[in-house]
């Protein structure tokens, strides 16, 4: 990763400038939806008022229930079909969400042989590495590169660390051949919310921030942490970043396609976003 990268962790022992917690726009609570039930007018023969009416209603209810169940089953089948990843491009789309979807999709994914080696982590799967906390154990080199829209992904990286007085840092994602701008251009059509995937210096990023206490799935896209500024205490930055790899192996000479969580990253948050990890690994 570059030293100038906006969302890179600081070098241990070198303190980033601290920033004040700024005022943020208040989130709006989701309003409860209410449904008004309109009476359904049905005409029934008048000569059988008590016996016939309930029977026909029961038939209608049964039919409604039957079709409802059929619709649900079809919907569930379609959803299951949509969730099964069968191409590297679909996998990249899931990855680009920077949440649990990637690990959930790997559970049933059908990918080219010899690319990602996967392991089970609880109820999900993830590319096998030795340990996200152990230097030298954070990388998996693919025997056969995974080709995603023409980009050669040659490995997977997964790192977690705590920097005292700064916060927790997690990076995970693919290591690619090619220059960052070229890689980003090829991947952009596959990236979720790609209108916000924009150049930031030499890197291409899609950034968002969340304040502790906001709904767990809600991210703010305004008033983001500025370049080179540590995430303020009580906030978490989430960034999808395509950047030049570090100057040391295994990232040297490559481009990284990473997701990151930085700042006040807690176990309850990791349980939602990184089901492949022991949520308490940074406690």
């Amino acid at each position: 990763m570059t030293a100038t990268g906006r969302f890179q962790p600081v070098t241990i022992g070198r303190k980033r400038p601290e920033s004040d917690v700024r005022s943020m726009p208040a989130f709006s609570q989701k309003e409860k939806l209410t449904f008004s039930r309109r009476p359904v007018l049905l005409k029934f023969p008048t000569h059988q008022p008590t016996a016939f009416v309930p029977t026909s209603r029961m038939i209608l209810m049964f039919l409604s229930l039957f079709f409802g169940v059929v619709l649900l089953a079809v919907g569930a089948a379609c959803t299951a079909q949509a969730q099964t990843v069968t191409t590297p491009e679909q996998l990249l789309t899931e990855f680009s969400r920077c949440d649990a979807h990637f690990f959930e999709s790997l559970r049933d994914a059908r990918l080219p042989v010899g690319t990602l080696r996967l392991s089970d982590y609880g109820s999900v799967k993830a590319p096998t590495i030795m340990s996200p906390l152990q230097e030298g154990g954070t990388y998996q080199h693919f025997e056969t590169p995974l080709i995603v829209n023409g980009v050669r992904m040659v490995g997977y990286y997964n790192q977690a660390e705590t920097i005292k007085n700064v916060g927790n840092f997690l990076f995970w994602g693919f290591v690619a051949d090619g220059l960052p701008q070229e890689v980003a251009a090829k991947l952009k059509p596959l990236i979720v919310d790609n209108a916000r995937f924009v150049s930031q210096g030499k890197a291409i990023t899609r950034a968002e921030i969340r304040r502790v206490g906001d709904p767990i799935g809600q991210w703010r896209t305004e008033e983001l942490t500025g370049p080179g500024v540590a995430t303020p205490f009580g906030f978490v930055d989430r960034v999808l970043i395509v950047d030049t790899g570090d100057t040391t192996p295994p990232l040297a000479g490559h481009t990284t396609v990473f997701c990151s969580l930085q700042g006040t990253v807690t176990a309850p948050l990791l349980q939602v976003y990184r089901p492949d990890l022991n949520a308490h690994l940074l406690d």
Partner: protein
Amino acid sequence: MNTRWPALIACSVILTGCAGMQNPQKANLVHCANQFKASKAENYPLVLQEGDLCLQKNTLPASLQSLIYTVQADAYSNLKHFPEAVAAKEKSMQLAVKPDPRANLDLSAMYRDAGNPKKALELVQYNLDNGMGEAGKGSGFHMPTYYHLGLALTDLGQYREAAEAFSTGLQRQPDYAWAYYERGIAYDHLGGRDDAKADFMKFSQIANKKYVLEEHKAKLAEYRISMP
């Protein structure tokens, strides 16, 4: 709370001194001094009675009125008269010379007690939105803010967010036993029994037994944990 008691003691001394004077106007201040004494003695009905007389019979400066209402609010709260506690606390805050982030947190707790967690959450969020840390604007946020945030979220049924808030507070103050207990409650609601048990265990090891009530012990017992 920490800054309030020295102020109360100082006011008590001043008012006791004034009340001892022969001037009948000054003598009315005896009710104010009695309110503080009753508060110290935890005689809450007397706190309310003397506080009312103090306010009726004297023309006090706004800052002192604010203090009297704060003591009234505390008494109402202890008597479990929560709407009255909220009203007294709000009067106290209106009369205060400058905004006090801690007072917002106290008011948040009173709104929770009064069954209005939404308002309780808004008050903590107001502090967060405006950078009002416990020690003033720009001083940063610590356990009290995140603890009250977590409690409001718990009452709203947002257990994941509550657990996150308690975890954040614990990064600032890892020895605050009640944050472990409350996070345990949040995990319990989320079905995370292992996490809940770990938190209840930690709580049982570091909590001051004086404040652990039967309801807390009953929760620990569900996890086969007893206070040492």
